């Protein structure tokens, strides 16, 4: 408990070495991703696959498709993000580099924050690529509410990244990690999914920011509560 209050204090005071370490970790992850483009490609392709299959499964009724569009997009993103979270954790288990990082880390939450930010970035890029495609396939004009949509997706992806990165590091140490990660992550993120899908549907239907404020507040609270909870317990996950 003493160590965890230390995390809080470091986080709050934004000490220089902490930020420098987060930057170094983030740079390393982004550099590796830029060279291999593994995470982004697998997430994007999988998301597209899910959207297309759903499209066929629902049928040709354009009105129906329009109504379920936001649900389909969020499901595609949730499932695709699972691939990213797994890969993020796996990167540190080759050559056990997690131990190397722990030796250099002043405060372990720097590792979590860097990984979470990297994941959030990849997810946002996937969203940027997939929205135009969905606009074309589902015949929805996202441009009318693009600002509010950005806010919703950013908050939503932040929440997914927090929970997903955390469970990704846990699931890595299980025998059936491809199965455990969705099992852990999807039920816990149900409030996020409900709120995000409702907000998106209402935005598509032409409602304004004021109407979806409730949902955004819910997502915001989800993000804040789990961010702090995860930071507190992260130490227990990584140390022996």
């Amino acid at each position, binding site marked *: 408990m*003493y160590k965890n209050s*230390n995390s809080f204090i470091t986080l709050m005071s934004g000490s220089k*070495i902490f930020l*420098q*370490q987060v*930057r*170094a*970790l983030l*740079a*390393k992850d982004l*550099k*590796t991703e830029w*060279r*291999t483009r593994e995470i982004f490609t697998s997430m994007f392709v999988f998301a597209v696959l899910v959207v297309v299959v759903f499209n066929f499964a629902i049928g040709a009724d354009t009105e129906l498709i329009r109504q379920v569009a936001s649900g389909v997009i969020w499901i595609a993103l949730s499932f695709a993000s699972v691939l990213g979270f797994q890969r993020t954790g796996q*990167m540190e288990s*080759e*050559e*056990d*580099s997690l*131990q*190397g*990082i*722990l*030796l*250099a*880390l*002043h*405060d372990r939450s720097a590792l979590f924050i860097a990984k979470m930010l990297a994941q959030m970035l990849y997810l946002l890029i996937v969203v940027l690529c997939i929205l135009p495609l969905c606009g074309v396939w589902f015949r929805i004009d996202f441009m009318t509410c693009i600002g509010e949509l950005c806010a919703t997706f950013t908050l939503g992806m932040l929440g997914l990244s927090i929970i997903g990165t955390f469970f990704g590091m846990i699931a890595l140490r299980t025998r059936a990690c491809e199965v455990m990660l969705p099992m852990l992550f999807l039920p816990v993120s149900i409030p996020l999914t409900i709120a995000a899908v409702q907000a998106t549907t209402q935005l598509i239907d032409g409602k304004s920011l004021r109407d979806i404020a409730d949902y955004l507040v819910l997502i915001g609270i989800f993000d804040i509560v789990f961010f702090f909870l995860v930071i507190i317990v992260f130490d227990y996950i990584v*140390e*022996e």
Partner: protein
Amino acid sequence: MVHLKGVIKHFGTITALRGIDLELKRGSCLGIFGPNGAGKTTLLRILATLVRPSAGTVSIAGYDVVKEGEKVRPLLGVLSHRTFLYGHLTGYENLQFYGRMFGLKKLAERITQVLQAVDLVTYAHQLVRTYSRGMQQRLAIARAILHYPKLLLLDEPYTGLDKHAVSRLHDLIVHLHAESCTVIMSTHDLHRGLDACDEIAIQCRGKIVYRGLSLGTNVQEFEQLYNAYVG
């Protein structure tokens, strides 16, 4: 410099260490010898703050490793079975990453310096995936000494190294020794270990069963001693 008192470690039902007492002065080089399963790796990992002891106290340079871990870690250089390196980055970038994590100043110069010490300057800008095992081990050594550690912990450092790399490592240890860096090394290699270290210890089944100086002990005598204790 290094004090261990009554250190015990359980992993679930397995007891890896059953009460280790060890003292080491600054600037000495200790070689820990022992069979597999003796707990040498566990001992080094406890010293490296990667594992918490179940009981006992460990202090390095006056800091308790459990309570003041953040103060201890910058002083340590760790070399382990795994290299802690990233395959998709170049050698230079790997060192740059660790340098930034430790907050080193004048990073570029220091990287060049350690690369020269391990003889990897020509390969610095190739991806680590393309390195041979020996080259990766050498880069790992460079990583371990990058931040001027006061205590170097080496777990089986000679595995995977060819003759050329072994002599380089030996020179490096001697050089660090001269700069009053403390070294603790665990190895199976009696000959090389004896050569490099000035103090020796034998660990067996979680306890230190012998502790002495290596000066004046030749290899055959030491082998007999080792067999006597380990059986």
